[in-house]
């Protein structure tokens, strides 16, 4: 077996907000084709990590290379061209746009028409280009089973549907690496199962590498290739799902095992 190709490498990344150390010396890498999960208690720095990768935050030190390119100092909007897409923990759709337009915005960096050629719609090729991308967007809409709401205003949809539209918009970017921040938070079991299936399909059929933050351990252990655990901004474990489940540090920090042990002792 040839050694896996590294798509993303994070080395010695630290990030502080004033006195609050959100991340301290975090190292990890993600291989091409993986589903890589980040878990950890609230406030552990998981979202901050994604924000560093997507460019929303600039780490105070360390390096982030994607496809061998250093991404530090690169603006967030330049990273979509490199093949990076993401969804947000708190919904971040364009509330007044239709679902369709929301997803079309995902094609922004792939489209070429602009403020001068767009208005000359029929004569500049803008129409042809828009329709081509519209077709690609419809494929995504079919895949995520949201065709019934494609004309609805995004801001009026239910929570679960909005999460799905956000995923569709990120997929529309045609990313090689997609970052999903709690894609199943607030969903019921059925919606979670759907979402897990979409993520697996994206990984296997659409060829996307996935980094996912998720609290539902069942899902995390079920679909991840590897898992990393953050606690108070530090990486405390990384490995195969089974290894993580068995790790003592993780049990203490995250799985609440400590309390149970304590209770057993006192009982």
């Amino acid at each position, binding site marked *: 077996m040839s050694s896996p190709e590294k798509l993303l490498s994070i080395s010695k990344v630290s990030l502080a907000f004033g006195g609050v150390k959100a991340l301290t010396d975090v190292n990890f890498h993600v291989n091409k084709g993986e589903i890589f999960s980040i878990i950890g208690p609230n406030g552990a720095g998981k979202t901050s990590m994604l924000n560093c990768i997507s460019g929303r935050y600039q780490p105070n030190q360390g390096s982030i290379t994607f496809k061998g390119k250093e991404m530090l100092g690169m603006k967030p909007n330049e990273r979509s061209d490199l093949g990076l897409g993401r969804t947000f923990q708190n919904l971040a759709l364009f509330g007044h746009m239709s679902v369709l*337009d929301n997803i079309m*915005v995902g094609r922004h960096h792939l489209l070429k028409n602009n403020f001068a050629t767009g208005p000359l719609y029929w004569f500049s090729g803008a129409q042809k280009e828009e*329709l081509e991308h519209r077709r690609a967007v419809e494929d995504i809409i079919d895949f995520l089973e949201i065709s019934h709401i494609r004309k609805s205003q995004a801001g009026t949809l239910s929570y679960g549907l909005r999460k799905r539209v956000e995923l569709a918009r990120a997929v529309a970017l045609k990313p090689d690496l997609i970052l999903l921040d709690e894609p199943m938070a607030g969903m019921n079991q059925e919606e979670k199962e759907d979402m897990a299936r979409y993520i697996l399909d994206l990984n296997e059929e659409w060829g996307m590498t996935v980094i996912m933050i998720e609290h539902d351990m069942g899902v995390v252990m079920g679909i991840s290739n590897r898992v990393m655990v953050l606690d108070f901004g530090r990486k405390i474990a990384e490995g195969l799902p089974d290894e993580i489940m068995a790790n003592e540090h993780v049990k203490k920090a995250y799985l609440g095992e400590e309390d149970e042990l304590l209770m057993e002792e006192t009982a």
Partner: protein
Amino acid sequence: MIALSMRPCGDFRTTYKADTQIFETSTIRGVTIASIIALCFAPLVLDAYYLTLFIQISYLAIAALGLNILVGFTGQISLGHGAFFGFGAFASAWFTNTFAVPVWISIPLAGCFTMAVGMLFGLPAARIKGLYLAIATLAAQFIIEDFFARAEWFSGGAYGAAAESVSLFGHTFDSDESFFYVALFSLVFMYIWGSNLMRSRDGRAFVAVRDHYLSAEIMGINLTWYRLLSFGVSSFYAGIGGALYGHYLGFVSAEGFTLMMSVQFLAMIIIGGLGSVQGALLGTIFIVLLPEVLEGLVGMIAGSGLVEQGSLMESLSYFKEMAIGLVIILFLIFEPDGLAHRWKQIKAYWKYYPFAY
């Protein structure tokens, strides 16, 4: 779940092309095209008063659409739109007077020139928002007004600048009847231009920046560029509108392009509907016609003999000024989403008629 689309039942789109039309139904498109054709015959039947009103609506509505792209679609603010309108008027006159550029070229040229100036004064938008941006554009308004007063080479100073009439293929559009066609063509052209912009890449980017700038940035949208570009496109429209105004009147002087005018443009898009292409037109029609209608009312009351001539007549015209303000305030309270929104509801009502809720 509120569906955005207002299509009647049974109107299924079978191609994506049919689904991305400017007009929502073929009926609306038919009615719009028929109205435009009907308007072509207007100079044959209507008298100059109505033609003047139409021309006035045209050049103001073009500028108002520009402001709506900036304020309604991109979510920024400008208190300097009147100055950009004036800049377009002077620039076009200057091109024709100084470089003998034909008017039909100098109008779009003035648009581009005003666009550049707009982007220059829009630079603060890369950094600041809201009230701070409002103040920065207010400064732009005063700086440009001052420029008009001082730059005699450009604006003719206190004397103002003469602006040639539009002429094309040896025909000069110097009467109300003939300029009507220039106005109609420009209005239709610029509104199609705007509608196409808003359904293509950069138009969507504007709305994305307005709705959620952080995720817009993740989608590959360069925030600084689109905030600036929005000022550019907005000023482009102001410049075209202003240039048309200048070549219609035949003369440009600086007095009109004040803060008052900028505020009036804002009133037009708020009344018409922020973030709506047809809203900009509806709002302009409203603001232009309101004083005329009130004037007519005052005339009727005076003519009826109920009111003595003389001093009371004067208070009536006072009343007119106040009524304009009152109507605008009432509008903001009872119709905050603007005329375009009301129009949508009327359409929805007829669509479901007789099963209205």
